Every structure is written in structure tokens, then in C-alpha cells.
């Protein structure tokens, strides 16, 4: 009951957040975003045709009328049709989000699990050569451009100049075997880059935890390293780890991975979001912004509940 009350309170408290995000985003779209009018016009438009297209797009209506319609769309979760393809926006999201999830999930999970694992090893061997080697690898992962990593991995694993094991690009998935073929190289590329950031972050968290008094005391009592790590370090370090993982989820779900999707030719939500941003396709942008904001509110709620689950000292009040 306490959790339910907390959830209701939190969700109601999230409404101003969603309103704020949508308002700011809509101001940016309307006043600073690309003007779709000139994407839709032909080669020799007349002033009359420009006015007609603007009217069709609804650009000639007052800002707050348009924002009101945006909120109505948000409540009904019906964002209309894409201004580019005419496809229903909900259909586009329904088609692309599962692909992005399937694409990004392995990299996201592996990147975090391996990140924690490597961070544990590095923290345990703090200042030793293993720690330095892992941190060196992390710095490389952070320093090399994601773009370069993608191109290099494509050449190494997929092209005729390299191992030629996997498809260069595409997403023709009809079976588990196809899935493994198409997801492997994108996953390797994203894990390579994510490991750098994750390992450094988690190591810092773990090292801080390892220097606490209760850990020193436990060690003095002769507790085994495995138990020490699991019970006294990792468990206490879970709060920042949960925060990092949970707050990545909305972006993983909605934004996908633009670079991965573009370079591997994968029709995910990241690609349609990018196209919508560059072409000024407002119905798609409104849907993506709304979904991200709502997911953030839900994530905030779940994160608080998880805090409570891993640390009984945290009160939901």
C-alpha cells in the first residue's frame, strides 16, 4: 500500500516535469527547428503555395493552440501522421522501438555487466598493473570516436577486407540465427565504447566504497574477498549503479542508437528520430519527446522503489 501511494504521488508529481519538457521542446521545435515547409515544396513554388503548405502543416496557427493540441495528443497518445511519409506515428514507433530494443539491449546489458566486473577487478587490484591495464583500455574506449569504432569493426568483422564473418549492414531477422548475425558487430562496437565509460565510473564507485570504515573493519575480521565484495562493497555501491543503469533506460528504449542504426542500416527509432530532427517532422518529434518524458517519470519512480529494495534505510516518504 505504501508503495502504491508513493507511486501515485510520484506520478502526479511527474506531471509538471512532463509539461515542462514538452513545452520547452515544443518551443525549440517551433521557433528553432527546421521549417518543414521548404522540404515539401517543389522547385518553383509560388508565395501562395508556400502559404498553403504552411497552413496544411498548421504553422499559421497560434503557438498555444498548437501546444494545446500537442497536450491532447499526449493524453490520447495519438500523434497523428508523420509529415514526411504520412505513416501513423504510433505505427512507426511500434515498428521501430522493438528493433532498437533488440539491437541495443545486448550491448547495454553486456556493457554494464562487464563494466561492473572489470571495475571490481580493477578496484581489487587498485594501483597494480591489472588496474592500470583495465583503466588504459577504458581510456581507449572513451577516447576513440564511436564512428571510428563502428567503421573499424565493420571492416574487421564484416567486410571482404577483414574476417567477413557477419553482414556489413541490414536487419533481415527471421530467426535467432539471423539475429545473432546482425546484432553481433553492432553489439561489439557499442560494448567496446560503453566499457570505457562504465568501467571508469563503476571503479570510482567501488573504490570509494572499499575505503569505508566498515569494509576495513570487515577485512580486519578476515572475511573472504568474495563475501567482502558481494556483501559489503557491491551491495552498498548499488545505489549509484542503479541510478546510472535506470536513467539510461529511457534513452535506450526511445532514442535507440542513432550512429549504430545509421551505419548498420537498421530501421530503428534512433534513425527516425534523427531524420525527424533534421527534417522538422514535428509529429514524430512530439511523440518521441513525450514518450521519453513519460518514461523518465516512470524510471524515477522505479528507481526510488529499487533504492528502497536494496537499502532498507531509504524511506519512500
Amino acid at each position, binding site marked *: 500500500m505504501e508503495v502504491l501511494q508513493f507511486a501515485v504521488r510520484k506520478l502526479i508529481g511527474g506531471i509538471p516535469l512532463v509539461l515542462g519538457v514538452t513545452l520547452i521542446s515544443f518551443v525549440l521545435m517551433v521557433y528553432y527547428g*527546421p*521549417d*518543414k*515547409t*521548404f*522540404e*515539401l*515544396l*517543389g*522547385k*518553383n*513554388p*509560388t*508565395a501562395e*503555395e*508556400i502559404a*498553403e*503548405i504552411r*497552413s*496544411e502543416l498548421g504553422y499559421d496557427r497560434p503557438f498555444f493552440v498548437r501546444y494545446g493540441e500537442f497536450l491532447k495528443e499526449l493524453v490520447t497518445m495519438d500523434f497523428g*501522421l*508523420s509529415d*514526411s*511519409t*504520412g*505513416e*501513423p506515428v504510433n505505427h512507426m514507433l511500434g*515498428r*521501430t522501438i522493438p528493433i532498437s530494443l533488440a539491437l541495443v539491449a545486448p550491448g547495454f546489458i553486456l556493457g554494464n555487466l562487464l563494466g561492473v566486473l572489470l571495475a571490481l577487478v580493477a578496484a581489487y587490484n587498485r594501483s597494480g598493473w591489472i588496474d592500470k591495464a583495465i583503466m588504459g583500455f577504458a581510456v581507449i574506449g572513451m577516447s576513440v570516436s564511436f564512428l571510428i569504432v563502428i*567503421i573499424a569493426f*565493420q*571492416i574487421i568483422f*564484416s*567486410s*571482404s*577486407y577483414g574476417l*567477413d564473418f557477419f*553482414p*556489413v*549492414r*541490414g*536487419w533481415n531477422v527471421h530467426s535467432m540465427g539471423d539475429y545473432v548475425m546482425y546484432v553481433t558487430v553492432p553489439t561489439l562496437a557499442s560494448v567496446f565504447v560503453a566499457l570505457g565509460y562504465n568501467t571508469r565510473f563503476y571503479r570510482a564507485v567501488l573504490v570509494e566504497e572499499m575505503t569505508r570504515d566498515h569494509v576495513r573493519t570487515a577485512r580486519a575480521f578476515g572475511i573472504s574477498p568474495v563475501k567482502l565484495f558481494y556483501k559489503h562493497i557491491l551491495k552498498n555501491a548499488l545505489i549509484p549503479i542503479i541510478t546510472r543503469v535506470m536513467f539510461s533506460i529511457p534513452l535506450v528504449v526511445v532514442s535507440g542508437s542513432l550512429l549504430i*542504426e*545509421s*551505419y*548498420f*542500416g*537498421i*530501421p530503428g527509432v534512433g*534513425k*527516425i528520430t534523427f*531524420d525527424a530532427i*533534421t*527534417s*522538422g517532422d514535428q509529429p514524430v518529434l512530439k511523440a518521441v519527446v513525450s514518450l521519453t518524458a513519460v518514461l523518465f517519470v516512470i524510471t524515477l519512480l522505479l528507481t526510488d522503489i529499487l533504492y528502497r529494495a536494496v537499502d532498507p534505510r531509504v524511506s519512500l516518504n
Partner: protein
Amino acid sequence: MDSAPSSIDPVQARNVYVNTVTLNAYDTLFSFKYLARPYEVKPNVAADMPEISDDGLTYTIRIKQGVYFVDDPAFEGGIGRELVAEDIVYSLKRHFDPAQRPAGAWLWQGRIMGLDEWKAAGSDYSKDVAGLRALDRYTVQFKLVKPYPQLVYTLAQGYAAIVPREAVEKYGREMGSHAVGSGPFKIVSYDSARIVFEKNEKFRQEPVDIYYEGYDEATQKDTGVEVIHGRSPPFLDRLEIHFIDDNSARWNSFTKGDETQFLLVPNEQVDSMLSSKDPITAEPAYANKYHIKWYLEAGLVFMSFNLNFPEIGYNVDPERERRNKALRCAMIKTFDWERRNESFYYGLGRIFPGIITPVVPEFDPDLSKESVTRDIEGAKKLLKDNGWTAENLPTLEYGAQAGVSQRLFFEQFRGFMVKIGYPTDKLVLKQYATFGDFSKAMSLSQLQLVAKGWGLDYPDAENTLQLFYGPNGSPGSNDANYNNPEYDRLFEQAAVMQPSPERTAIYRRMNQIAIDDCVAIMALSRTRIMMWHKDVIAMPDREIVGGFFMKYVDIDKSKSSALDKGN
């Protein structure tokens, strides 16, 4: 393809990407011959070329019987019905209905009797248009306000693709992602990464006569297209077009062997794959493995001075206007086309004076090259004689879409101008985040220097000469906002003339006027290099309307199996 079409609705067929899709999913009255170069138009759904009245104002076009749309729930019983003349009337009317968000009205505006009035009266499809009528089930008639010799070309474009009314009424704006046509292929799926077609089993049986299509044994025998002679297209059961923005991904996918079959060679690969640029010769490693052909694009790149700006163009002070012209001429003399060609087009582009491109029949190969020959001393003298100094030269904004290559173009341009003493801080790059923003700035006449490329809509010099026609000024395609009564008079005179030596002479006169008035720094046509696998039988070409060759593509399965075995 190097980009995805943003829509597949014919009313939005405004670039090569949309055309490539629409021309394979839909039919048009006319199309271009597969192999003939220069391009020649031929009947497609039309049974023959149009009957044109003596005054050039009435076009009567009979269409083929037995042309069927693909099966779709939009039709009664889900079975595609026969394409009839009313469909052509309806499809063109859509361009005059604002609710369809059309982009192609400019092709027929002010040309077809009653069509503009039909739009002004509210685009009511139940009302007839005097100049656009179905005389019977298989005959359509166009009545023109004035002669329009390019009409047949416009009816070969994606804009003129024939859509059934039932589909538009059922799907509305979703026609942008759902095609219901009668073309050689039907669309199975379409997203931001690829489009998948399957053979339209209902497509009419029309055996190919390669000699009628313009087959040239001397230059095309190695493509193997003879094997399609006498057979009815399409030959592929399944056609996939992948949209790959990134050059390296496109190249890797192609060279891998079992993914991409066709490729427009990215610039970065040109150096490594050519052993000679003059004549163009491929390295044996590539020549032995792939079919390679090159051709000059049907288009050009050039840079206009926007004459709406008194700093560089028209001015209330006649003396300043005269000096402005001298400044523009000096900048043209300073521009180094040879360097531009070497730096950005691997020295393979063709530099030519004026706006009439080499691929159209009206091109004059003997025109003086003076306007494309660098002459620093001549430019300096012009500036000095007209009182221009580093202190009084105007600050000019060069507009471009944001990007590394655009910045490089600008920096090279600025580097050229420094040679005549133009201060670097007086040539300013103004970048726009998206093409839409850049396009908006051009349309609203906000840019002083406009660098752009233009792809021909049809093989007639009128299509590029209209770039300087006064009434086409902003927001139209005359970005220079050039306004010369003599040029406009000649344009209007030629616009109603059928192709003839007299019309060619007028075109060339207009070209010379634009050169003499120093309206733009022009021009260069790029060379396109196409590569495709040895087992693919085709003569690819993405110019003019793009993608019209796809239905003729076939696979040599004996070579495919040899390739599979690694031979």
C-alpha cells in the same frame, strides 16, 4: 542509394530518391528509352506518342488496354482494376489540391487550360477541367494555354505517376508510405533503411526490343543486355534498394559480394580504383571483377550571385550597379574551375561555360571558354578600373548547409578570391543546420552567394535556362533573382517552340546573355562512375528521373553460381 526517399507518394517525387521508387511501383504515360543516349522519350502506358494539333495546344493520348493496378484492399474485392484515362486526369489534379501537399504543380501551372482555376475554385474532384479530360476509357486529352513542348517529358516523371483514386481516398496521406500502382514491381516493405519490391505478376507483357531502346553495340555489348531482347520485363522476382548514407558502409557492402549489387562509386574510392583518368580506365583488379561504366551527370554545379542585394547586384544607383557587375565578373575570372575539379571531383568533371549542360542537344561545344578560364590579372584590372579596393569591397555571405565538405568548398572559394585582394573577413560562411533551413534561406532570398547543384528534370536546356528567368525569382528556382527583360523575352519566345535550330539559337543567345551579365560562376558537370557485379545484366543510370532502368535488370545465374564458388 545514398539516401532514403522521405515519401513514396508521386505528389512528392521531387528528387532522384523518390523518383527511383515511384517509377518502379507506378506507371507513367511516357518514359525514357533504356539504352538511348542522349535520352529519348518513349510511350509507356501511352499506346503511342501523342497526337499534337497543328497549333501545339492539344495533345491527345491513347493509352494501352489491359494495364492493371496491383491487388490492394483499396479496390473492390481487393483485386486491382484496370488503369483508365480518368486515373491520369485524377493523378494530375492531385498536384493542384493543397490537401495532398503536392510538390509538382510547377510543371503544369499556367499551362493546362482550367487547371489553375479548378484549384482556385476549391479543388473539387467532381468538377471537370477543360484542359484535362478523359475523352473515353482509353483516351486522355490535354488542352494547353500556350504551346508547351516539354509536356511529354513532364509526363515521364515520378510526379506524373498514375495513382488510383480509391487508394488515395482509402489511405490519404499514408500514400507516402503505401504504394498502389501498376508499375513493374509492387512494394512489400518500406522503412528508413530499405525498400523491398516484388515482381508485379500482373505487369503487362511487352517484349523488349533493345534496338528500339537505343542499344549501341560498340559501347554496351559488354553489359550483356542483348540477352533481354525479346523477353518481357521485369526480370527480377525481388528487388531491394538499401538506403546507405555512409560511403564506407556502401563500399564495404558492395565489395563484400553478396549484399549490394549496384554502386555509385563514392569519391573516396575513385583514386584507388582508377589507373587513369584520361581516358578513364579502371584498375585491372576492379575491371576484372565488376562492370564499370561512367557518364556525365544530367545536371551541373554552379554558384549564383543574388542580385537582389544592392552590394553585389541591382542598385538604385546605376553607377554602383555597373561597378557591381564588374565585381561579379572579376570574381568569375578569379574562380579556378580546374582546381575545383581536381580538389573535389578527382579531375573527372567537365567544365563548361554558361548554364546549358553538355548532356542536352542544345549544348554548344564551341562556346568560348573565357568565362571558365582563370585570369587573375584581368580580374585585378577590372576591379581597379571600376574603383574597387580592399577597403570598399562589400562583405558577402556564402550560404551552405552545415558540413565539412561545404566548409571546404567555401574555404577554397575564399582562397581563390584572396588572389585578387578580397579580404578574408569580407567573405563569410553562413551555415544552416539542415537542408530545409538552407532551402528556406534560398527561397526567401536571404543569401548573397548561393552554391548549388541542379539535376535536370528533362533533357532540354529550358530546364536550366529557367534558372535565370525573371518570374522564377525567389521563392522560385532563380536564386540569382536575375531580371533581364531581353533574357525573359527570349525565354518566353523559346518556351512555346518545338525543338528546332531556331530554338537552339535562342537558347544559346540566352546562355551568352547570362554569361555576359556575370550572373553566376558556372559551371561543371560531374562524372558518375557506376559499378555492378558481373552476374548482373544492366545498364544502370540514375540521371533525369532515376531508377527507370530497374525493370530491365536481369541476373546471369551461371555467373552467380561461379561467383558463389569463388571463381
